[in-house]
């Protein structure tokens, strides 16, 4: 089969991006595949194109509602019409309609908690599944930074679905996580494609300060000197708002973005950024999904990320166009304390575990009373069905150690007195890198490369409503 021709006929592209062709060939050859492709490398094409050839449905299991919605929107934008997303937030009347017309869809996105329901399994089996895609497959691993217990249930469903051919996709995975993905998804002699994590066009810069005010001053200095478009990751919603105000006060175009804003406003900020109406977006880690902008020049961390994986994912939003881009991590003494407390806050406490074991389903009511937290309930009720109390306590203890390891590796990143690029690669078990020019602050960066890169951002039309209307509908 001529894949290039298929690609051109289906989507009008003339060539594949690195990795896509190898993965697609193996998928079409009927093999299980595990593909590690950095974000922005066109992961979804790896199942989209096979969908053009394979006879049955492509089921894509996706862990996050917002991610699912974004992918559906992207597929539709590429002209794909037979796409549907099934999640537990659907209205009953919509669900009814979807079940009755399921066979008319080629690409079926589904949340893991829906996939395990017997009714759903029956419907999917009647359909005939050509390929099961586990998107963000690292969520299956409890060693991953993004563990979702619901995801483990995929493994339990596979036999009931007749063990379909599986494609596991992820952007970030260490060897340990890769092993778990293979094991849980029961991948049989899988073809593993692992794209180098390393992004040569990104220069890693770390700057350390004794206190917060120096750090802030440096940030303002940086945004005044170097250009955008750029993302500034702040640790909290309040901080993102505060930073945007400071940058606006300098006369630059900035906005804040966080999960507490209404959805329409979040879309507006994404659009403005994509339209170059904004130079800087100050955001929490809620910003990123649904942002498909190739020429982000600068990603600044004003707060320590909570894991290397998260850091790489956020930094990886820069320079998708392969042009030189800067990743700056700003650190003030004591910053790690906030991160460590955030990380540990996520873990179920011993008393929560015991309560959930004691009360079972009823423990749900304790969430409202503030006795236990929802995340703790979700994780522990999964284990409760599978392990005795001792086993789960042990599991969580292991998890705690893993989180501590993650925190330590972030601390190590900040305080490393060697090459930052190599430090990051090593945490993904990838070694022997060549050092590109402008590698990192250890090997030296020619900052003049990044100075004044910014295009003058477009002024958004102000003035009377009639003028605005004329800009919107220029006829």
């Amino acid at each position, binding site marked *: 089969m001529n894949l290039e021709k298929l690609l051109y006929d289906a989507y009008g592209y003339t060539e594949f991006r690195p990795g896509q062709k190898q993965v697609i060939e193996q998928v079409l050859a009927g093999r299980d595949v595990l593909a590690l492709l950095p974000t922005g490398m066109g992961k979804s094409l790896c199942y989209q194109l096979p969908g053009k050839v394979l006879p049955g449905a492509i089921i894509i299991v996706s862990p996050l509602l917002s991610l699912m919605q974004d992918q559906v929107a992207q597929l539709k934008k590429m002209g794909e019409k037979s796409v549907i997303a099934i999640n537990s937030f659907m209205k009953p009347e919509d669900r009814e309609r979807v079940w009755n017309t399921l066979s008319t869809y080629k690409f079926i996105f589904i949340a893991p908690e829906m996939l395990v329901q017997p009714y759903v399994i029956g419907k999917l089996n009647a359909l005939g599944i050509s390929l099961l895609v586990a998107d963000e497959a690292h969520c299956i691993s409890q060693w991953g930074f993004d563990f979702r217990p619901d995801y483990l249930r995929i493994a339990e469903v596979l036999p009931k679905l007749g063990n379909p051919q599986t494609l596991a996709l992820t952007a970030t995975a260490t060897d340990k996580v890769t092993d778990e993905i293979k094991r849980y998804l029961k991948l049989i002699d899988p073809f593993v494609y692992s794209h180098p994590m390393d992004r040569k066009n990104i220069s890693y810069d770390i700057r350390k300060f004794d206190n917060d005010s120096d750090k802030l001053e440096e940030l303002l200095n940086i945004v005044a000197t170097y250009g955008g478009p750029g993302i500034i990751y702040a640790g909290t919603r309040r901080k993102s708002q505060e930073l945007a105000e400071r940058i606006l006060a300098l006369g630059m175009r900035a906005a804040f973005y966080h999960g507490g804003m209404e959805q329409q406003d979040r879309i*507006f900020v994404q659009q403005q950024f994509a339209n170059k*109406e904004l130079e800087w977006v100050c955001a929490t880690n809620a910003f990123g999904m649904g942002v498909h902008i190739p020429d982000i020049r600068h990603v600044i961390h004003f707060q320590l990320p909570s894991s290397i994986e998260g850091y790489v994912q956020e930094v990886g939003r820069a320079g998708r166009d392969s042009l030189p881009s800067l990743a700056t991590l700003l650190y003030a003494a004591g910053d790690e304390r906030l991160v460590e407390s955030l990380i540990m806050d996520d873990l179920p406490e011993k008393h929560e575990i015991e309560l959930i074991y004691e009360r079972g389903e009823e423990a749900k009511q304790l969430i409202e009373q503030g006795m236990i937290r929802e995340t703790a309930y979700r994780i522990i009720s999964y284990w409760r069905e599978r392990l005795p109390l001792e086993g789960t306590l042990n599991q969580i203890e292991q998890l705690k150690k893993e989180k501590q390891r993650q925190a330590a590796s972030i601390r190590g990143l900040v305080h490393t007195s060697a090459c930052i690029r190599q430090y990051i690669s090593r945490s993904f078990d990838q070694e022997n890198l060549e050092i590109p020019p402008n590698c990192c602050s250890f090997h030296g960066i020619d900052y003049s490369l990044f100075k004044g890169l910014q295009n003058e951002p*477009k002024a*958004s039309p102000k003035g009377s409503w009639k003028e*605005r*209307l004329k800009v919107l*509908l*220029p006829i």
Partner: protein
Amino acid sequence: MRFDEVVLAIMKAVDGQRTVSSPYHLIKGKKSGQTIQDIGYFRLHPYFAVLPKLDKQDYLASIDRLQAQGFLIPNDNKVQLHGSAFALEIPSAPLNGWKYRGNENRFFARLSLVVQTMSNFMQGQKRFDPVVTDETVQAWAKAYLKRIDFRSSAVQEAFKNQLENSLALAKTSEAHKAILMERLSGCGVGGLTWDQLAMEHGLLPIDVKIAAVEALHAWLDVLEGMEYPLLAGMLEGIIQQSALTESAKRTQNLSERGFSLQQIAELRQLKTSTIEDHFVEMAMNDPAFSSAPFMDEQLFQSIHHISKELKTMRLRDIKERLPEASYFQIRLALAMRGDVI
């Protein structure tokens, strides 16, 4: 109108008779019997459901401001206004919440997608990320665009002209219209967030939201005139035909078929108190509603008499003087004052 003025306008009406959180429920459009009934009692139709997504924190911030300015006296039980609040002139606004009930937002979502699509196609851009993600709205907009043949430049021009001419006639300020247009997106132009608009117009974000609702209500009033068919086409299902809530409508149907209050409660498997709420709602909205099945004429007159004498609509005060009347009878009689709607 500023948000604080909306709150104050409601408080002036319910002063001393309702809790401090009652304006919050009204502004959010809560469909409880109490809230619905208050609209009639206190003539609060303009403000019902003007901000369905109102955040409790935003409301409490407004309460803090009103207290700090001395208009509102801190009181845990009921609204207690200072004399200065009554002296304060509150500007009139084209708000018509009881009629639109938050549906104006659906109209605006449709408009946002239609304008964005036309804007992109006019400029040769056929692929873009839709600014509204709700699939029902997307499906509606797609069908509408197809129906009006939106690719034709004559249609595009007519659309723009109708939009401009009708909005020009809307009885609201130019600044409010600007806020509304700035919430629209087009090719290479993103809509502005509430915070951005607040900064630009020197207002609070919550004030900008109210301004947008005012502009929408004033505009919808013009569009209903049907002289702008391309825009009127977007009103489908937006304007409530019956003033009753859905549930009350069902109760009304059963009542018209001769079922008693008790029977309706059993048939619908709802609490008697809920069905009573529906009758109160019907009493408020239907000029022909008769109280005869529920009380004799004499009791009806006594309730009104005492309400006038005591200058109150507090049920408890009336009940104290008229222990033989049930709370339901009092509510029903008050709802039928004849000057509602």
